[in-house]
């Protein structure tokens, strides 16, 4: 009975002692810690595991060992051409030297506000010394893309096998080439900021532009300009259509005239040839006795023409020579 009581008390006292004195601490994966004794860092533990410390005297300060994100608010920066754009930057960083970090910043929040200052000012410098397109584009890929079939597949080439005019004007666009590009600008910001930040015991891993936007009034301008550009293209297509139609009508006119005049000519040739042949036939025959032929033709023509006329005859003609006498 007494033995139980004693052992129970010993156990309880031991547990309480351990809990109060706490001679160990745990560093989890992804964490690191420094041991501080009387305000001085005496040890740093970068590896995870169970660690011991001097009870009551040592304090443990934990830091993340993981890669941390910094996400500043989007900032309105002027570009080289003094156009204001919203630039939203994120960065990744980690604590490399806990001792320095503890001395200079102590808390993560302080680090964030320093990152705000340093990255934003570097970014402002970099953006201000470059044109907008350098920040927006990353390479000159935009000029390498083949846009021949963009509208062609929907419209088909014209009769002459050419792309519609509207397509030509569209595909011929080349954009001002860039020299640096967004990634280069980001790494400029990184380089400028990293030096200063390394003195605070942290490493800036990268700086990445999450988003670039126009300010609201420029956005409206851009919309207007986009609309205008599309209107032009639409107009070009319609005009092209009108032109094509006119071409067809012109072609039709030409064909019509060619066909009709050709037929006319052929008909005349046939007739002329026939006339000549007929004349030739007659001439050959009549030539055999021109004097009689003349008489013959006169007779034929009289027969043909006179019956339709109103006639008044005098008895003076040869026909009536026997009218008043029976002999010559």
């Amino acid at each position, binding site marked *: 009975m007494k033995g139980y009581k004693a052992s129970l008390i010993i156990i309880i006292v031991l547990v309480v002692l351990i809990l109060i004195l706490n001679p160990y601490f745990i560093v989890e*994966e992804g964490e690191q810690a420094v041991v501080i004794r009387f305000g001085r860092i005496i040890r740093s533990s970068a590896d995870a595991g169970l660690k011991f410390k001097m009870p009551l005297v040592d304090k443990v300060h934990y830091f993340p060992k993981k890669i941390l994100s910094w996400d500043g608010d989007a900032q309105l920066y002027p570009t080289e051409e003094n156009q204001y754009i919203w630039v939203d930057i994120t960065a990744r960083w980690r604590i490399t030297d806990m001792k320095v970090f503890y001395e200079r910043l102590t808390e993560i929040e302080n680090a964030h506000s320093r990152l705000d200052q340093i990255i934003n000012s570097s970014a402002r410098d970099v953006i201000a010394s470059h044109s907008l397109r350098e920040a927006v584009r990353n390479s000159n890929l*935009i000029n390498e893309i083949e846009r021949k*079939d963009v509208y062609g597949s929907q419209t088909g080439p014209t009769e002459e096998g050419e792309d519609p005019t*509207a397509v030509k004007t569209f595909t011929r666009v080349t954009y001002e080439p860039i020299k640096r590009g967004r990634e280069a600008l980001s790494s400029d910001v990184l380089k400028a900021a990293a030096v200063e930040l390394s003195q605070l015991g942290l490493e800036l*891993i990268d700086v990445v532009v999450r988003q670039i936007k126009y300010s609201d009034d420029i956005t409206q301008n851009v919309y207007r300009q986009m609309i205008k550009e599309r209107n032009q293209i639409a107009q070009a297509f319609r005009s092209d259509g009108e032109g094509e139609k006119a071409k067809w009508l012109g072609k*039709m006119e030409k064909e019509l005239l060619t066909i009709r005049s050709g037929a006319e000519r*052929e008909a005349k040739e046939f007739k002329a040839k026939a006339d000549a042949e007929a004349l030739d036939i007659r001439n050959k025959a009549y030539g055999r006795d021109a004097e009689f032929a003349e008489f013959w033709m006169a007779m034929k023509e009289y027969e043909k023409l006179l019956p339709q006329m109103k006639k008044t005859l005098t008895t003076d003609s040869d026909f009536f020579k026997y009218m008043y006498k029976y002999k010559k």
Partner: protein
Amino acid sequence: MADEIIDLQALQKKMNPRVIFIIIVVIFLLIAVFSSFYTVDQKEKAVVLRFGKYERISGPGLHFKLPFGIEHNYNVPTGRNLTEEFGFRTHKAGVVTTYTRGDFSQESYMLSGDLNIAEVTWTIQYQITDAKAWLFNVDNQGKTLRDISQSVINLMVGNLAVFDVVTTQRTLIEEEGKKMMNEFYNKYKLGISVVSVKLQKTMYPKGAVQDAFEDVNKAIQDRIRLINEGKEAFNREIPRARGEAKKTIQAAEGYATEKVNNAKGDVARFLAVLSEYKKSPELTRIRLYYEMFEEVFKDPASTDLIDKQLKNFIPFKSLDSREKGGDR
């Protein structure tokens, strides 16, 4: 009241140290049992830490671990494809998927390389390939993942013309975007692999801009219609003209044949008469002359006859009366 006092006394009697000790041991054992196993789902992997230090990874099933939090497990869904949505949020997926209402244009509106604006929404599917890396290398993994995905798509869109983004270069964005995201995630040792990047919407900004773009499509249709109108007119007129031309030519051929035949006919008669004429010219001549007269004066009513001498014959009609316009 008395009853309670008796009960308490009885309880006190029972609560001797031995009983308490046993109770404590039982509780201790119970906690030990319950904190010494864990289950892992088929689609998961568990990372086990001992005193915060990485110990092992275990697959699906029931597993044992050291109790009292000495070993701790994190279950990570490695077997599933995880999805992140950008520019929209699925509210409830199903036969009729509903989307969360709200403005995500902050994510989806971006600048294109030709300094226009496009609306792009997309999803990424990824898999956690390294559970340990996923847990301990990067702080706030989800946000890092989203930040990078957003910046990559922004960069891709910023590198192309808005037209390319909306129409032809979607695949390029998806493929290059996936490659680039994976490069970033590998650099951070995030322990994930992007399986696919899928663009959902790639559009021009809503409203007037979109209308203007649609008008281009209408213009393309107009162009086709106009060209067809031209072709139609051509096809309507030309075959008819060809037919008519043929008709003209055939008529001329007919005329020609007729003309020649007439000539031949005339000549044949002439030649026949000529041979007769050669035999007796005078008689033939007279015969022909009378035949002509017969032909001309076949219609007896139409001829007036005037006697030259006026003494032998009574005129049917005087010249004077005719000249005065009297009727016949």
